[in-house]
């Protein structure tokens, strides 16, 4: 039985932390911020990993593998391009 109250609790707290932290992000960095949060939300990789790797019927695992590919693409390209952009911001 899923303890969905504690899940909702976590969701609300995480949202407030997110709002608090993101509000302080430098306006200069909104583009890298978006690619970074994008890579972070590719944490969906965890779900895809289970669906792909567990002993499930093949069709299910194929769906999982495509999802895993999509999340992994986001992780790799998201972190790499964020790093590439952040390297460019120099004070003087």
């Amino acid at each position, binding site marked *: 039985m899923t303890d969905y109250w504690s899940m909702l609790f976590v969701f609300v707290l995480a949202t407030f932390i997110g709002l608090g932290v993101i509000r302080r992000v430098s306006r200069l960095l909104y583009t890298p911020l978006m690619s970074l949060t994008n890579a*972070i939300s590719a944490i969906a990789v965890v779900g895809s990993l289970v669906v792909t790797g567990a002993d499930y019927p093949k069709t299910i695992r194929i769906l999982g593998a495509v999802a895993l590919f999509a999340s992994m693409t986001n992780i790799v390209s998201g972190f790499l391009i964020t790093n590439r952009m952040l390297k460019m911001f120099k004070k003087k």
Partner: protein
Amino acid sequence: MTHAIAQFAAIAATALFILALYWMNAPKTARHAVVAGVGGMAIAILATWIQPEIVHHAWILLAIAAGFLVGVPLSLVPLTAVPQRTALSHAFGGLAAGLVGTAEYYLWLGEGPEHFTTFRMSALVVEVILGFLTFTGSLMAAGKLQEVRWIPQRPVTYPGQNFVNLGVLGAAVVLGVLLVLHPTAPWATTAFPIVIGLSVLFGVLLIVPIGGADMPTVISILNAYAGLAAVAMGFVLDNKLLVTAGALDGSSGLILSIIMCRAMNRSFTNVLFGAFGTVQKAKAAGEQKEWKQESPEGAAQLLEQARLVVVIPGYGMAVAQAQHKVRELYDQLTKRGVTVKFAIHPVAGRMPGHMNVLLAEADIPYSALVEMDEINPEMPQCDVAVVIGANDVVNPAARYVKDSPIYGMPIIDADKAKTVLAIKRSKNPGFAGIDNELYVQDNTWMLFGDAKGVLGDLVKQFAGGGLH
């Protein structure tokens, strides 16, 4: 034991993700953000991978390898293409959520009805609808930004459009609610793909009426959707790490959407259902003022005699890839003791922060980049405002033309500068399809042509010895 490791990893990853976002508050610390993010992700992946129920390792390795194969080239695109790359990654995020939701549904259907609690099934339906609409919506946005030939760039509208769009979404939601109530009914296996189909369709329809000027807002909204889809996946899989990471992404998208909307003085609903810039009623043809064109020589002289020059870049600079020429001009002017500042409108370009990244790429120090609210009080002291491929964000009509689509939008007060030099590709109106009276002001001189070419000519005036 492995369960405890997984729980601990989830906590560690969450902490690292929050730290990563915290470090984005200043360019100085921002590069730690990537390290923290990668660390959190690696911990989460490894902790999941070592769980005993994972047995098909070859499949996982294959999918991960494919992710690298596509992800690495995607991270190397030119920075002018970053908006479409971002839209594409929202599409991938949506797709992953939608597919996992679909897989879980059929899995539970095979394993037995005890899996379908109302809460889980509701989360699953939300995940699938949000995931697939984000998938196609973001693909469409990416297509429009990439200027793919068969996707119309201009907003496409037709009578009853909002009715059709809301009808499609409404049908998906109603079917979704029915599925929540009767997840294992005989018709459910037919209804489920229909929900997917409607969501896919809605994503396309949602973006069809969106124009280029609205892209920063739309990309931010899609970002929030992708995050919420991950949250829903977390609810479905009973995974708190997914919920927290998705919530961080969702709140980031939400904040950016709000900032973008405010910067255009518009509401969410207005962006999504307003079809900005399609209907441009020809203004009652009063006196048509003429452009005044300036030569590169004349423009260079104006710039050289200035004390404060404010450069206002827009999408035109990105299209022409002119940021490096901007940098050369910046060098020539600062060398001669001219103060050069860059005024950045929040919605300049096609995504939040677009101009900052391009100028940073050209090695312009970020201390020279100034936000709209800070530069506007300085504009009356500005000797020359150089508008490079920006249009709506400097259109004075936003202040007082009540029936203009951009009425009320905060603008950079280029018109208050002593002199305005405007570089413009053609004599056509900008993306919003609105005439800009700034260009026909008494103190405005136009330089027509591709921004890169025009700036190159200007720089030559300085470098070639014509001026000293």
